């Protein structure tokens, strides 16, 4: 186990210089192949939707943070913060500060974190944190190549590594060391599709079986195509406010109890233990410490299932299963809705879809929706605390948030 030093932004004793933060509005666009919509269209749809949900006015917005991994390669566009502020009507007259945040697949979670800190610090009051990715304007090969830039291009990419390849190597070692099986990996995908079935915005709403997964084409042994999250267009947004004034906007503010982030080596081969994402472990430990909670207190969690093995490692590294037991815990149904710790009620990256920069924000939208009691058929009864877990690359960045229904 790595040694940890949890740093709390909200100290136990003494005067806290940081304010409590709440989420007052949320919105997801549909996730899928959105041929008719450009990047700016989907982000604006999500952003405006979240502001409407918050009952706020554009004039009140102090800052915009946008998580986006790779608009440069997907749509040949950089300067995303400026683009989105412009098309949201926030730059021509209001000239609000807009920042694009990038941490590969953790761009969304990191954008949320930046937004939270700007409110918590007292620097800003009403802040929009959005995430978006438009991936289908390029072909599948180009998209996969763009995603591979989240790994170490020189020393993993040049060797012929792909993302499925890297996670497949994690899976193979996990199976070798702990006896995890392909069937257990498949159960992750099956469960997430079952959840996605009840998520109106999910890219895939179809039910699949373990057999469907195992019979699908092999991408990188042992991962089949159904073990892998898809290529998706989509955007999500949340509106943040200081907790003290949240009730002016909504009857159901949801509170941020922890925002943490940790890094690890960019290349998988440099990790301390290939089957453990130390960045997840660290971010989680810091989050539990900050929120003064334990894994048992969490009622639902959105984890980063870019591949089925990633969900298995995530529930272990976040403290919901012993190391090596993630497969068994999943196969036992403990992570289903109604189970001990519902994981990925949104359908996860696998079924809901993975528009890279949007995912971290979408996860927050799902938890907020659940804690508000508005999740319909995917509702986790009596949910009080929710967690989100967003990872960049093969684990070089991990961002963890804990949310609560009560302040």
């Amino acid at each position, binding site marked *: 186990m790595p040694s940890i030093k949890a740093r709390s932004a909200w100290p136990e004793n003494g005067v806290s210089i940081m304010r409590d933060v709440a989420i007052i509005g949320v919105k997801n666009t549909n996730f899928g192949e959105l041929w008719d919509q450009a990047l700016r269209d989907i982000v604006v749809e999500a952003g405006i939707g979240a502001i409407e949900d918050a009952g706020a006015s554009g004039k009140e917005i102090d800052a915009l943070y946008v998580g986006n991994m790779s608009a440069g390669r997907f749509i040949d566009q950089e300067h995303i913060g400026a683009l989105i502020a412009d098309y949201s009507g926030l730059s021509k007259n209001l000239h609000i500060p807009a920042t694009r945040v990038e941490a590969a697949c953790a761009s969304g979670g990191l954008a949320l974190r930046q937004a939270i800190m700007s409110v918590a610090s007292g620097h800003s009051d009403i802040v929009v944190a959005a995430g978006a990715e438009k991936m289908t304007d390029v072909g599948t*090969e*180009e998209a*996969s*190549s763009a995603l*591979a830039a989240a790994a*170490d291009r*020189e*020393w*993993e*990419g*040049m*060797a*012929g*590594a*792909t993302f*499925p*390849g890297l996670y*497949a*190597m*994690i*899976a*193979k*070692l996990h199976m*070798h060391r702990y006896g995890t099986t392909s069937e257990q990996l498949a159960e992750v995908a099956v469960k997430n599709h079952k959840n996605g079935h009840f998520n109106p915005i999910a890219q895939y709403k179809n039910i699949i079986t373990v057999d469907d997964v195992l019979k699908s*084409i*092999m*991408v*990188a*042994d*042992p*991962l089949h195509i159904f073990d892998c999250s898809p290529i998706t267009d989509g955007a999500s947004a949340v509106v943040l406010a200081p907790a003290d004034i949240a009730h002016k906007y909504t009857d159901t503010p949801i509170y941020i109890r922890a925002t943490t982030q940790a890094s690890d*080596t960019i*290349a*998988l*081969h*440099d990790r301390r233990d*290939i089957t453990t994402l130390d960045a997840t472990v660290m971010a989680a430990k810091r989050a539990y410490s900050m929120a003064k909670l334990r894994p048992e207190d969490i009622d639902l969690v959105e984890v980063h299932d870019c591949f089925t093995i990633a969900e298995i490692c995530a529930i272990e590294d976040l403290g919901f299963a012993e190391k090596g037991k993630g497969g068994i815990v999943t196969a036992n149904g403990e992570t289903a809705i109604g189970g001990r710790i519902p994981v990925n009620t949104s359908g996860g990256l696998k079924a809901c879809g993975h528009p890279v920069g949007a995912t971290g924000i979408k996860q927050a939208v799902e938890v907020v929706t659940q804690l508000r009691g508005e999740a319909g058929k995917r509702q986790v009864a009596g949910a009080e605390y929710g967690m989100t877990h967003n990872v960049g690359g093969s684990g070089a960045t991990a961002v963890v948030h804990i949310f609560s229904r009560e302040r």
Partner: protein
Amino acid sequence: MSSVPRFWRNLGSRYNLEGTRCKECENYFYPPRNFCVNCRRSGQIEPYKFKGTGEIVTYTLIHTAAEGFESQSPYTLAIIKLDEGPSLTSQVVGDPEKMHIGMRVKSIFRKLGEGGERGMIYYGTKFTPADT
């Protein structure tokens, strides 16, 4: 892939497994690092040429190849722990059925890829079962 200066800069490392080591903490680095991750500023980095022997830590058979590697598909990608300590990512040339965790491997000189028909050819080090 296609960047002549980027490839040229790492030529020695790729052809000859030239890496570094820190005299202070006696850790070896391949791929090379100019700044010790353990000692940071108190480290003393010097060049080191690796023997090229090691073992497979984990591996996979990639069917959906990375861009530029399509002609080599399917290929075995592995994380290999060199005998001196550090691990690297590389293709392993050989019968996929024989690959296993813990297999001993040795380095060989092969083409990594090329920048298209007209572009530069990238050479470097791959690995193969040690008993070949």
